[in-house]
């Protein structure tokens, strides 16, 4: 018992409990980590995920840097001239706040680094009234300064939250930037020359109570000559939202500059093309799963961070299959395979595509594959290497194909690389109907367009095939085609075939015959057309070689994750989950007593609520409570009800509680229309 100086009886708080708890949780973390951290697959997963995460971070920063630059420039210059209105930047972010919180954090950091230490972020949830808003803002501003000055300033007095008002802010600001003549500490003198602006960031403009914001802007504008405020609004919908919530006497106090951020579809495409579809990421999503994720993105939420989380989940699911997934990387494959234990190899033998491999082999080889570990190691190494060689080519040629077909009319294969990818990993893209359509359309392309595209393809191959022999061969061929196309200019005129003129003096019948004849006979291809068809044939051949289906490869499961069952984990469906839980509790409880063959069976061993729920499914819109109770009793206690018309109080209490629980879950509600009845609220099930 710790001693206190107090003589009164009571409960006293000793402030060491919290620390102990946090220590505990940390040790717990360590314990859960140690479960997997030795396994091979976990190490691979971890290193891969970390590299992807850092890459995404970098890409984020690079993408946001553009808009960040212009914003920072705006903030820097907004007080160059004297202002009569508060400068404000409206950043049109697009819907999805969670995605943008990172951006605003970066913005805040950047402002702190390069412009001013006085930055505040205000969120709508905290600022219900003007009082809270001002208190939070002033507190943040004054506190942040104190943290820096803590060692130098001896008289940092504690400021209570209720004291925070604009008067305090003004006093604080004037003290900070008093004219150099009266300044006493040398350290402060450095900052004297230019007063730093005060930036107020409001990331979720729509969530802010308009009244609070109006008052705040009016106050801030009345202090404009003393406190140089700048606002940054994050607007999710459109600028209309600003005008809707600020009346003209408020909006005349601010001067809004609009900034646009990149739409989230562009953002996702960038992440996909630069990170996930690159040689750095050996883990691939199969067609079904990939389509699922992109559908969630496009149809439901447009959230890139959601997409990344889904991707991460798929990775986890993929890697925890077993140690054989440790092979899902580009290097050290030989090393890893030779380290594999017998169990790990068994793990590999359980992959579905291994069966196909066995079936295709001769009987002796089959036995060797199944029993001889060393033989199997060699086969595994050979097959995995095949896939490792295939993957970069897949991406490269997908991009080439994208260049070729992305801008075709109606874009049969889609306009984005991701659409091509989804097609290529789920079936053989070169055999598909859309692919054929595309090449038919390509056969009508003009020379300039085609030249341009071929040029871009060669550039792509040159830039991306480091040390790949095939790359050089292909580019050589393509360059030759290009040269031919360019040289065409001079030759064309000479080779112009003189058209057989249709002589004017011809009978109508003759003319018709002539025209018929002309339409039947194939026009001889001119030189350009010949080159074009040659070129397209060549490209098509290349695509057929490199754009194979992943399932053609043995052990493709190591690199491609195509288990659609993740759907149930990714897309929550609470109503179905509740229904299953109540209708068939065995699914969740896993107890032997509640196992049922069909849905309609009701066992007395089930939880009360589940019995009541199952009984209510059989009822109509109104449920008679007494009948319900009787059927409940007949299941829970069959003998008792037959002998004794009086209901035991325990059972009735159990029933009442179960009904109350159902009401709480929203399945029924009490009704005033009929006495002793409740109304059913859900249908089907």
């Amino acid at each position, binding site marked *: 018992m710790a001693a206190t100086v107090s003589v009164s009886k009571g409960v006293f708080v000793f402030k060491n409990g919290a620390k102990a708890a946090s220590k505990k949780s940390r040790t717990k973390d360590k314990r859960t980590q140690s479960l997997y951290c030795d396994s091979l697959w976990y190490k691979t997963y971890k290193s891969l995920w970390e590299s992807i995460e850092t890459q995404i971070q970098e890409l984020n920063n690079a993408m946001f840097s553009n808009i960040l630059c212009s914003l920072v420039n705006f903030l820097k210059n907004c007080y160059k001239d004297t202002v*009569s*209105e508060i400068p404000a930047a409206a950043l049109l972010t*697009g*819907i999805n706040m969670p995605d943008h919180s990172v951006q605003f954090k970066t913005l805040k950091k950047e402002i702190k680094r390069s412009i001013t230490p006085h930055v505040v972020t205000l969120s709508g949830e905290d600022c219900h*009234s*003007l*009082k809270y808003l*001002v208190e939070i803002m002033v507190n943040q501003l004054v506190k942040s300064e104190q943290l820096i000055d803590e060692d130098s300033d001896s008289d940092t007095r504690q400021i209570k939250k209720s004291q925070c*008002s*604009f*008067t305090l802010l003004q006093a604080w600001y004037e003290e900070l930037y008093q004219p150099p003549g009266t300044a006493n500490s040398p350290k402060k003198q450095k900052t004297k020359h230019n007063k730093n602006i005060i930036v107020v960031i409001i990331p979720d403009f*729509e*969530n802010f109570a308009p009244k609070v914001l109006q*008052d705040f802007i*009016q*106050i801030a504008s*009345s202090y404009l000559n003393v406190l140089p405020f700048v606002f940054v609004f994050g607007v*999710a*919908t*459109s*600028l*209309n*939202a600003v*005008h*809707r919530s600020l009346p*003209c*006497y408020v*909006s*005349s106090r*601010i*001067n*809004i*500059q*609009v900034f*646009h951020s990149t*739409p*989230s*579809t562009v953002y996702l495409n960038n992440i996909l093309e630069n990170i996930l579809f690159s040689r750095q990421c050996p883990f691939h999503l199969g067609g079904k799963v990939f389509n699922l994720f992109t559908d*969630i*993105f*496009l*149809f*439901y*939420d*447009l959230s890139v961070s959601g997409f990344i989380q889904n991707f991460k989940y798929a990775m986890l699911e993929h890697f925890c299959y077993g140690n054989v997934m440790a092979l899902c990387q580009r290097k050290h494959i030989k090393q890893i395979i030779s380290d594999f234990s017998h169990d790990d190899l068994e793990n590999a033998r359980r992959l579905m595509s291994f069966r196909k491999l066995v079936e295709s082999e001769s009987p002796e080889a089959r036995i060797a594959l199944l029993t001889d570990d060393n033989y199997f190691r060699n086969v595994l190494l050979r097959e995995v290497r095949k896939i490792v060689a295939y993957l970069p080519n897949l991406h490269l040629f997908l991009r080439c194909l994208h260049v070729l077909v992305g801008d075709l009319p109606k874009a049969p294969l889609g306009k984005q690389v991701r659409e091509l990818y989804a097609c290529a990993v789920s079936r053989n893209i070169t055999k598909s109907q859309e692919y054929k359509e595309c090449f038919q359309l390509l056969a009508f392309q003009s020379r300039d367009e085609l030249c341009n595209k071929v040029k871009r393809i060669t550039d792509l191959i040159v830039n991306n095939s480091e040390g790949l022999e095939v790359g050089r061969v292909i580019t050589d061929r393509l360059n030759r085609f290009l040269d031919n196309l360019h040289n065409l200019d001079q030759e064309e005129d000479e080779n112009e075939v003189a058209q057989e003129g249709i002589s004017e003096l011809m009978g109508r019948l003759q003319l018709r015959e002539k025209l018929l004849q002309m339409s039947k006979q194939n026009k001889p291809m001119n030189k350009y057309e010949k080159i074009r068809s040659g070129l397209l044939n060549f490209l098509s051949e290349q695509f057929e070689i490199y754009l194979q289906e992943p399932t053609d490869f043995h052990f493709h499961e190591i690199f491609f994750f195509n288990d659609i069952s993740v759907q149930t984990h990714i*897309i*929550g*469906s*609470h*109503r179905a989950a509740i229904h299953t839980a109540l209708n068939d509790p065995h699914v969740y409880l896993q107890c032997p007593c509640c196992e049922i063959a069909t849905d309609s069976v009701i066992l007395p061993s089930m939880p009360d609520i589940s019995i009541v729920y199952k009984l209510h499914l059989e009822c109509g819109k109104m449920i008679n409570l007494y009948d319900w109770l009787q059927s409940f009793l007949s299941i829970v206690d069959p003998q008792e009800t037959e002998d004794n018309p009086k209901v035991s109080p325990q059972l009735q209490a159990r029933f009442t509680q179960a009904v109350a629980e159902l009401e709480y879950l*929203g399945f029924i*509600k009490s009704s005033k229309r009929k006495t002793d009845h409740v109304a059913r*609220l859900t249908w089907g099930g």
Partner: protein
Amino acid sequence: MMSTLSRLESTLPCRSSQIGQLYNLFGHNEEPFPGSVYISGGPSVGKSIVVSRVLEEVGVKHAVINMIECYTSKILYETILSKLCGLVDTKCENMMDFIDHLQRNRSEIHRSVLIIDKADKLRTMDFNIFPGFLKLKELTGGIHISVIFLSQIILQKFYSKTNIVEPIQITFPQYNKDELLEILTLDIDYARNLIINNAKGGGFEFDVDFYRNYLNVFLSVFYRNCRDLTELRYIARSNFLNYCQPIISKENTISDSLALWRKVAPTLKQALQNLYLRVSTVTLPQSLELPFYAKYLLIAAYLASYNPAKDDKRLFMKYHGKKTKTLRDVKKKSKVSEQLNTVLGPKPFSFDRLLAIFYSIVEDKVGFNNNLLVQVSSLVELQLLSSLSDSSSLDGAKYKCNVNFDFIQTVCKMVGFNIRKYLSDFSHM
């Protein structure tokens, strides 16, 4: 003595009668101050500046309190004490403490004036503040202190059951066109700077008449729509460069005012569209990116808001039976536009109805899952829908659609949906 008055009148044009009144009240050293003065007038008619300038000129100590800042009475009292008496860090919770503090600093505040700006806020604060301030001289036991209220509403709005002492009232009327012209002409220095800074190589000197010409042209377009001085000054400043553009590019001379007028008129008409908006860049045509199903949910919400529920069966079901034409239907066809649902404003609808309409207008099968439901709440968060029931009730949540017909039409165009087909307003066409 008259020189102060004339000096004031020259710096603050068009307000001579008000300045005279104020001067009479506060300008004479030997006279006692009035107890309280109530000044009313619309926005930007010069209330604050006139009052503070007059008091400065006659050398009366005064403090300006902005009521928006004083969201609690505590802050109000403490701000007054710190500004008037120089008392920092005093605690003052109520009127009695406040009076007490004032009495202790009697000598300090002798012959001083308290100016309460945005006094309309007083109506929503504690009941005793406004009457208390009206009688401040009496309550403090005869300290020579006066209170000036600046407000946009008339005094009658303050009347309550308890009688209040009638203060002296001064009204600031709105400026008329000539007065606006005169005041805006004072802005000529800014305009000159603008020309010198922005006209590369083509800077020129101009006189007051040239600027007045511009303002005449400018007011002829804007006076009908806007009398707010600050707004007019803002627009006048931002459009002056456009007016001078032909001179800078040496197409016209300064004296050619008619040609200048003809050239600037379209620009001014365009600026009229952006009145009060204060957007410095031309915004791109707005494109709101919403997920596919969220768009359909929004369309469904619009349909639910602007169609009567009894028409749902006819609009969304395949076999809804034949409808016999009655005389009422025929009459309905000749509806005047004021009775159209789309004009009348959104009606609330239940969540179930929203989902039912959503499922009937979306062609492919959509799973009913959490991601879909989250969309509804995120639409509410974006203020495209508004929730009418409180969040605690689980079933029967009601919503309203906040977007207008033009907006929903652009959304429909994006997903290729013909909304007119499903609106009962258009069904007879």
